[in-house]
């Protein structure tokens, strides 16, 4: 009996000991993740966000926009639908979710916060300029979108939409900062001394802040010309400010172009979609685009587009028959994809800047030589494509009527935008922006047009899953379809 009691005491002690163990909170304090950092340096966020903007511009949205802009033609999958003007709320899900809001935009936001906390105004400045560019891309595609209420994470799981006008113009009552002000804030940040500043992590300029300033100023021009029909006074004043400042992109070497790499996992999406993808046979170059450049014997054509035995093998937009055999089709050439996919993805170029200024001179009457700017735009584009000076001169000699602005303001604008369209090859979103805003270039309807009413889309339809997730999005029949114009599209 004695030993029994002894044992019981032992067991009791053991039990108590194990209970005391519970008190040891250290045993349970193991829930800090060893797998993912809670904070990261600016130098890891900048390339993430830059690549995100480029990815958004260059991936599915380019397949869509280049196709409805009659640059490419769909031979299968989604592009075949786009080619017939068919888009709906199931399209561009990955773009909205993971390339724009959950990709570039939120990481610019993190970069701004991180940079401002760690003394890196250079990073903050770049992030603000690029966030403005990326928000502009988003609103240009979808119209009214979450902007001032977006990117707040747990603070706002169902952000309200801002009107496209408020996004461009700002609205102090609603506390909405205009895209222009966002860019200007970024430019002001770039003027500051920055203890932490980018180097090779800047996959655009390699840390050259002066070029970022030029990019910011050219972006102001692009944003201004985009609203020049609805808000000509605002557009004029912004453009005049930029001209006075004289610090916009003035050479191809200052192009806002995002560079990718030449190996798997680093390649620009347009290269992968052309050469190394399940989707690689869904797109070929449109007969219409090739015909357009052939009429002027444009030296950029063989640089833009591949040939098979010297022949362009293309299809008409909306074509419903048997496509030319895979392997023989004309597709994006290295100008668009880069050798082995190194890109670059050209987001804002010298040629584009020239054409914007030429249009501003003609449309808004800002000071400048429209003809000179127009010619410089064409030359800049050809130079960027690698056309020799002799060939450029030949082109100018052979196409005097093309390279000389003439006629009414409207026909001069048609000339400018048509050349801008060619120079924006592989940047379908900007071609689409210009076409919606100006109606140029003149594009014939596609075959077998379908979609909502057989008209070329003038906006993308809000993503179904976002409508599902956010009651502040228009619901049901209130969702604008692809035939409803956005705010700046008034022609």
């Amino acid at each position, binding site marked *: 009996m004695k030993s029994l009691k002894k044992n019981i005491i032992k067991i009791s002690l053991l039990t108590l000991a194990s209970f005391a163990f519970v008190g040891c909170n250290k045993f349970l304090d193991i829930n800090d993740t060893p797998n993912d950092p809670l904070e990261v340096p600016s130098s890891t966020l900048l390339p993430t966000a830059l690549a995100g903007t480029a990815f958004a511009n260059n991936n599915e949205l380019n397949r869509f926009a280049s196709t409805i802009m009659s640059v490419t033609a769909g031979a299968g999958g989604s592009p075949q639908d786009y080619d017939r003007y068919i888009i709906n709320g199931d399209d561009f*899900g990955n773009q909205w979710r993971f390339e724009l809001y959950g990709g570039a935009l939120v990481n610019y936001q993190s970069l701004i916060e991180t940079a401002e906390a760690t003394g890196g105004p250079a990073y903050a400045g770049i992030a603000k300029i690029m966030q403005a560019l990326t928000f502009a891309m988003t609103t240009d595609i979808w119209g009214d979108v979450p902007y001032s209420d977006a990117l707040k994470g747990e603070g706002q*799981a169902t952000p309200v939409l801002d009107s496209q006008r408020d996004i461009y113009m700002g609205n102090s009552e609603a506390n909405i900062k205009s895209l222009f002000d966002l860019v200007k804030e970024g430019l002001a940040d770039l003027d500051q001394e920055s203890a932490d500043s980018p180097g090779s992590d800047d996959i655009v300029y390699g840390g050259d802040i002066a070029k970022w300033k030029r990019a910011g100023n050219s972006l102001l021009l692009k944003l201004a010309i985009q609203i020049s029909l609805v808000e000509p006074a605002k557009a004029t004043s912004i453009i005049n400010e930029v001209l006075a400042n004289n610090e916009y992109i003035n050479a191809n070497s200052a192009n806002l172009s995002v560079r990718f790499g030449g190996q798997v996992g680093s390649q620009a999406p347009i290269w992968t979609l052309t050469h190394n993808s399940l989707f690689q046979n869904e797109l070929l170059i449109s007969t219409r685009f090739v015909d357009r450049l052939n009429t002027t014997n444009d030296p950029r054509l063989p640089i833009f587009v591949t040939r098979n035995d010297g022949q362009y093998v293309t299809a008409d937009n909306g074509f419903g028959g048997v496509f030319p055999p895979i392997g023989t089709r004309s597709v994006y050439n290295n100008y668009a994809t880069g050798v082995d996919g190194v890109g670059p993805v050209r987001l804002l170029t010298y040629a584009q800047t020239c054409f914007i200024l030429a249009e501003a001179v003609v449309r808004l009457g800002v000071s400048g030589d429209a003809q000179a700017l127009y010619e410089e735009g064409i030359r800049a584009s050809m130079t960027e494509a690698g056309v020799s000076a002799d060939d450029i001169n030949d082109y100018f000699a052979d196409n005097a009527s093309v390279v000389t602005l003439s006629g009414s303001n409207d026909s001069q604008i048609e000339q400018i935008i048509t050349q801008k369209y060619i120079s924006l090859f592989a940047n379908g979103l900007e071609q689409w922006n210009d076409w919606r805003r100006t109606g140029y270039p003149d594009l014939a309807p596609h075959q077998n047009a379908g979609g909502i009413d057989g008209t070329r889309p003038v906006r993308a339809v809000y993503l179904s899953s976002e409508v599902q997730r956010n009651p502040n999005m228009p619901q049901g029949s209130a969702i604008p379809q692809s035939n409803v114009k956005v705010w700046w599209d008034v022609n």
Partner: protein
Amino acid sequence: MKQKLLSLIFVLTCLIGVSFAQNRQVSGVVTSASDGSPLAGVSVAVVGTSSATQTDGDGNYSINVATDATLAFSYIGYVSQRVPVNNRSTINISLVADETSLEEVVVTAQGIERTARSIGYATQNVSGENLQQRSEPNVLNALQGKVAGVNISSSSGQPGSSTNINIRGITSFGGNNQPLIVVDGIIFSNDTDNSQNSLFGSQPSNRLNDIPPDNIESINVLKGPAASALYGSRASAGVLMITTKSGKGMGGKTEVTLSSSTNFQNVAYLPKFQSSYGQGSQNIYNNQSSLSWGPKFGTMPTVIEGGSGREVPYQAYPNNMRDFYQTGAFYQNSVNLAGGNEDHNFTAGVSSTLQNGVVRESDFNRHTVNVGGNSKLQNGIKIGGSITYGKTKQKGSTMGNGGSAFGQITRIPVSYDLMGTPIYDDAGNGLYYNPAQNHPLWSVENEFFTSNVDRVFGNLNIGYDFTDWLNVSYRVTGDTYFDSRKQVLRNGAARAPQGAIDEDQRFRSELNGDLMVRATKNDLFVEGLNANLLLGQNINQRNYKESGVVASSLTIPGFDNVSNAGVFTGSYANTEQRRLIGHYAQLSLGYNDYLFLELTGRADKSSTLPTENNTYFYPSASASFVPTEVWDVLKSDVLSFAKVRVNAARVGRDADPYLLNSVFVTSSYGNNTASIEFPISVGGSSITGFQRSSRIGNPNLKPEFVTSYEVGAQLGFFNNRLDLDFTYFNTKSTSQIFNVAVANASGFDTQTSNIGEMTNKGIEVMLSGYPVRTNDFSWNVNFNFTRIRNNVVAIFGEEPVGGDLLTSTVIPAVNYFGGITPSIAEGYPYGVIVGAKNVRNENGDLLINPTTGLFVPALPNEVIANPQKDYSLGINNTFTYKGISVGALFDINKGGQIFSMGQVDLRSGGALAVTEADRDQPRILPGVIDNGDGTYRKNDIQISAQSYWQGLGGIASEAAVFDATSYRLRELTVNYSLPQSVLGNSPFGQVSVGFSGRNLWMFAPGFPTDPEINTQGAGNAQGMDLNGIPTTRSYGFNIRATF
């Protein structure tokens, strides 16, 4: 808490004090009433004390008792008897077999044995014999159709593919809804560790598949939270308690059991193909088209075949799909050695399963070796343990809609000579009619997934009876495995034209320590009131590690090693650790064998919740009453037994690790069509990138809870020949830990939250018995019926959002396709599929576009399919005549829908037989045209057959939804036991030979093939056939011998 326990122990200590009556030694032999054979391992207990012993191998027992004591004899499967000693020294007893198991000893949570009558909740036991020699290597599949309240579905016919199991429905929005698996007290991982994109990947096995059915003695299913509460958090989805074979009950003998079976497998239930029209569209031949809308056969003698460029006859190959699959085979062999008696016993075994799948190049091989034993030392300490090593290898082909053999096999034009065309050109490159895709035979050879699991699990128990009423034991269990995986996409694969090898390792381990103090007191306070108290503590640690490298741009064709990489993309290493400390108590009271009450409580402290919320308590109470024991008048020739039971329980559950913080992760963009993965190489520099994780963390996370109520009755009829068991349950899940979808414009995709409410209401009915039983012939029936109604009451907050619009969110961690989303939707059952639904008028007629004659565009965000069944039932009949027994399991799974890309692909592609008839005649889609004035006219717009069948809808439409109802002969077994007269003096104790068949007959009225397929594998998303592998039919021969 400490103080309470201390005082409790003190009180218990004080209770020691046993009064001794005059004692004598009683001995005897226990035999079976049916054949007089001795029964080994019969429990002989002295009523009112905890003094007990067991019979030895010859049925002998001996026990020291008071002269006025009563002995209770009980043995599993036999009617217990109570016999007063009455001064006798020899008491021989023959026990009557109890076919209805009313007196059965049931193993409940934590291995505690109880008589069936005392249990206030539903459990169901399935013996190993019902799982073995069934032409089925996966235990879960072998359990299909046999247990009420349990829903089991296999996911494909690929060997080793995972099987989903849910008990009493889905109770957690985002957590693991598979039951806890406990093997001999060892918490046993049944994870699938899905590393693959569920849209495009391969399916790893569910890890319970590491145990062969041959090793299993029995499976006890604890269905509700009341039954499983002692296991704590993870048992809220129920428990499968698996007992493997041991030497207990051998009665001193040593026996070797040999089992062997050879089985063959075929793909079952392929769709019927048309054989009149070939490759192309709009009656024009096109040798790169995936469609069979080309010209009629006979209109041109030969064509140039796509890919090979051969000139071939233009004709039908309607058996392409059948010929693509092969006859699979599997061989299961095991040797089990067991011996000893109740106090000292041992077991050892080896097993082997070798399987070649119906898909070429697929296989599944499993080997296990185990040893174990128990011993009672001279000092009274009982010690036991077991250890098992298993090695499971699996090789399978990748699945999915884009770029897999199974995404292509549904796109083979009828005129394409799938099996005859060359699949390689002279340079060794793949040949296929569609150069962007791969020939299915090329795919199964060159795109595959292998998994190689080494697993060890075991336990060690030590226990001691301090007095006849106090037992203390400690149990340590461990389970660990290492899974070395490789996915190979060789050069030329559509998904990775330059080739890619994903080599990854997964490691999982779990350790548990359980201290249990058990006290028993009979005639507590009043005579006939027996009490059992259990106090326990559980310490749990789980570790997980995964790491991998992805090698891309392969250089040397066919060299499947990561060293072949031109570039490495997407390397990763993640570890997880979690700990939990639980304290539990159970008080069981029984009054005179007719009234029982059990109270349990458990408090858990988990590492995965914020410190201020990491302790949570949950109780359960259950009661059982046996009126026939109280009022004899209730008993009649018809009703021989009645028991009613009722319980209420609540179980709390913690979170997965590391959900509290928002983090940054390595950056990547894109999907399987175009992607970049940081670090990226730009201009010679390697650039590191981190991005916001798409999930918002929650530092205020709380545990989630399931509350459950259950009532049930068990009735025995006709002298217990027929047993009816009925259960109704109602569970409510609240405060769900869930990564709820947020608007992506917030910058994020999901937010970890405590939200929502979901209910499950269900009925389980079991009926078993012997309609006919004579000396030579018996007919045994087991019937089970399950009907569960799941309803998502609210998602955001605790109240439904309401309104006209669908409120829904996506099931987390599921890859989904375009607008086809496995979802959680308010007012609907869990797991409905949300997609675009065709537009209908108020009468439900489909609206037709008056210009095209096609459906008007479908509207998104509608529920288009519900995978949950209306009900399921299984009927198992076993006929035994002398040594021959024939068993047949028939089951019905009624209702539920399946979203099948493959079947709709075949139909809109013009390959199915249904598209053959009247192809040259115009057709009219069913529907109405809006007259614009609120009236409608019947659609009369004629369209071509191709437009019609394509207009019904393609792979991302409502047209891909099918009714999954099936009627099935799940199992057929024929066994013959050689009579003793034949075995005579041979060394064999028993020899039986048999035939078994699985899935031999199936009828699915609403689906072209077998709807029991789910490419998402085991997990919360069900009813998705995104180009999976069809089910199989298997049959085989087996032999079992003991000596």
